[in-house]
């Protein structure tokens, strides 16, 4: 007796559950992001590809102090500094970075470089399209860092 009842109850439950699925499939839009055709949503403090920022007057924020390099736990950053030409300074003050390289193969995106930076020059941005066909393309030069590509992301509100 009880065996038959279980079968009927089970069938009813499945039917009810399928009803929910059917209803949601018809009434709610899909949540899958069709990346890369659609932008990813990231939180504002997401740590993506590095960027070197500039001041509003165009001068580089980076002064080549190498503190990011010292803070980096994986040795992914290499900086060589140089004296500014007083006539054509690249950054405010006496010193700028001549070479600034980030090795994305080593980087673990921990953000310690951001924290170490006294001028908020190096920041981890929202760009996440990091796959490359060549290892050399994973070595970001100062030029790459100062001219970051537009990120294929949307900022998700902090929950």
């Amino acid at each position, binding site marked *: 007796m009880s065996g038959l009842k279980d079968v009927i109850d089970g069938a009813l439950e499945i039917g009810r559950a399928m009803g929910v699925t059917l209803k949601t499939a018809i009434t709610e839009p899909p949540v899958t992001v069709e990346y890369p055709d659609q932008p990813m949503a990231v939180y504002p403090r997401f740590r993506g590809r590095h960027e070197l920022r500039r001041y509003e007057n165009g001068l580089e924020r980076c*002064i*080549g*102090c*190498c*503190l990011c*390099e*010292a803070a980096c736990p994986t040795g992914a950053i*290499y900086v*060589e*500094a*140089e*004296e500014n030409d007083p006539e054509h300074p690249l950054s405010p*003050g*006496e*010193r700028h970075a001549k070479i600034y390289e980030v090795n994305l193969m080593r980087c673990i995106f921990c953000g310690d470089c951001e924290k170490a930076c*006294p*001028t908020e020059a190096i920041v981890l941005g929202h760009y996440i399209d990091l796959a490359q066909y060549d290892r050399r393309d994973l070595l970001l030069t100062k030029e790459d860092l100062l001219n970051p590509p537009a990120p294929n992301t949307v900022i998700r509100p902090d929950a």
Partner: protein
Amino acid sequence: MSDWITITIDGRQIQAKDGELLTDAARRAGIDIPVFCSHPKLDPLGACRMCLVEQETPRGKLLITACTTPVREGAVFHVSSERAVDARQGTLELILINHPLDCPICDKGGECPLQDQTLKHGPGKSHFWEEKQHKAKNYPLSDLVLLDQERCIICWRCIRYLQEWEDKPQLGLFHRGGETVIDKFPGTELNAYTSGNVIDLCPVGALTNRLARFSYRPWELEKTPSICTHCGQGCNLRIDSRSHRVRRHVARENPAVNDEWLCDKGRFADGISFSADRLTVPLVRKDGRLQPATWEEALSRVVEGLKEVVDRSGPQAVGALASAKVSNEANYLLGKFMRGVLGSNNIDYREGSGLLADPRGLPALADVHSADLIVLIGCDPAEEMPVLANFIKRASIRRSVPLLIIHARRPELARYPGVFLNPAPGEEIPLFDALTRATLEARMEAGAEAIPDWLSAETPPAAFPAEAVQEAARLLLNAEKPFIAYGMDYAWGFGARGILAALVNWVAAAGHTERLGFLHIQANAQGAGDVGALPHQLPGRRPLNDEKARAELEALWQSTIPAQPGLGYSGMIDAAANGLLKAMYVMAADPVGEKPAHAEALKQLSFLVVQELFLTETAKLADVVLPAASYAETSGTFTNTERRVQRAPQAVRPLGKSAPDWLILMHLARRFAPDKQNAWNTTSPEAVFAEITRAVPQYRDMSWENLGEEGRQWPWDALSVSRELQAHNGGLLNEPDDEYPFRLVVGNQLWDGGTIFAATPQMAHLGIQAARLHPDDAASLGLAAGDAIEIRSQAGAIQTTLHLDPNIKPGTIFVPFSLRDAPVGTLFDSRGPRTVVAVSKVEAPVAAPA
């Protein structure tokens, strides 16, 4: 000497020396008292107040500065009492009022005592929020030293260093209170030869290295304890490098050699290791031009070329020039290759058999600190060894040690009390004879032996003030511990043998022969001879006819060594000119650069190999040029002028495809003589040094490890040199006449136009490119300072600029070595540098219209 006493610090009983400063006593006991102005090598001043501690006195507990307080038996101090800590925190807060917070761009950041002590002893917070004082930043004191007045904390260390050690007070304090700044005295330059030491001394980033500016952060440097290879003093330094590039040199303490100082050449001229002019690939002559080649190709060509000459003309037709600029290992292996593989004793270096140096060099550099008389004969430490010169100045100032100087021009050290005698070339022997006679006469008064006949009979009356000669003779005779050094000027060229004999007579008459030493100018002039780069001596300075020595080396080298002496440096070049020498192997030497006429001789050779850092004038003539590695790129040992063997370990990798000297010679020997490979199987410079300790008896107790960071001296009495009164014959120099009215005086100057300066771009313009003449002589010739002049001898002529200098003896002209494009060797005739010249004005070359 001083007694040990007991003092109390923070309730702890500690032992101290009576009268020493509290900071020193505390440091020994491991108690930390922060300091800024106090420095172990500088006199106490108490300027910064950072070391405030409490002392118990009859008037109660007083705050005193620990760096100026001598300790006495039973004294009681409180270092960590609340009041003392509070006082130090307050001091630090005051120091930081105006100190800018630009640590991220400051070269001192990371090794800055002010940073460290702020973290350790600072209050952590400041009461002050006002705008900081603004002063000059990025203010060059000289081409080498940069001042940031904002960062200065007025500790006076730089001022005191220049006063106390260099005796050139060139920096001072200006203004008062918070506006006090360090600056040059008006009208003076910061041009002391050891000015760079103020950078090491500065406890903040106020004084920084202008050449190394912004090229490093202290924490990212690899630090290699090494030595300076610019002169024979062998000052200890640290090579700081990063990503295989030398970033800077910093002084390293070695009380026996350089205390903790460096001269500016040693500190700043580090460009040799990364110069863009360096050779980075082997060059082989093809179709009449030197063309890049592989090592395989170059070495095969060297082996072929040498084999061909040996087969055709025998091993005596091959010669090798070694060098006092490269390590013991390189010189030893070149000697081993020449003697053990080729079978020729033709090996020498410029400062080798042609220089009458004492084979033991100098007794000890540190003797200068305890000497009661300093005698400098034909050497000028102020230009040749500035750090030693500072020790001499200090001996004069602090201990009133008289200086007895005999030199062809008036050197800087002649400004100190003592006797200065100024013989022109040719007048040395009469002068030394007069000194010998005066010494013997003084001893006869005390009942000693008679004056030998040859001395009284042969010597003409000397053209020197009798009182000065008497005084000089008396000084040396009465001295107990004189420091006596003679230099290259009287040990080289025509007549040097006679001059040295006359000098030795004087020193022997005064009874101080065991204190007479030679001051080598080149870094490894002592070591190259020790390890056997000499035509008449085997390693260990043993004569070639020493059967036992030959047998030992033959066993070690698995070969037979010829017993007949080889040709010396100039002998080889002469032999090349008249076709007796067919092939030459030149390592780190540049005979053509020294004397362009040598090019004709070297062009006669059928095969020339040059192993060098740069494409020198000699290298341009070579059939094969092998690129060598510099001092920083390979390990090696150097033996300084006091026989101290010191390590210079590898700091960075060789530039391009250049290779260390020892490795090149090792490959060459193994290719040349495959049957002797068992004697040529060392695989590291350390192993080569181990072999040297077996080949050179004086080095027997040494090993790479036990040389340590301060090196080891081989004993002065390991070699004996006969030094006694003997008759001598100087030979006559040619006299000045109407055609050639000036006697030539050559010598070294620190700021020269040589490779070391040329390779460091920021220093290239600093070399002084001029000959010097007495103003009266210049006036009689109608010449003015800055004129372009031609100096002509019978051998040749050079053109350079004229400087006027009252320190030059009238009738002589001083031409330094290493003038750019004007090698003084051009003027040398068969009598070497001791010749006469004419000086005339040349119109400055006018640029031809296009």
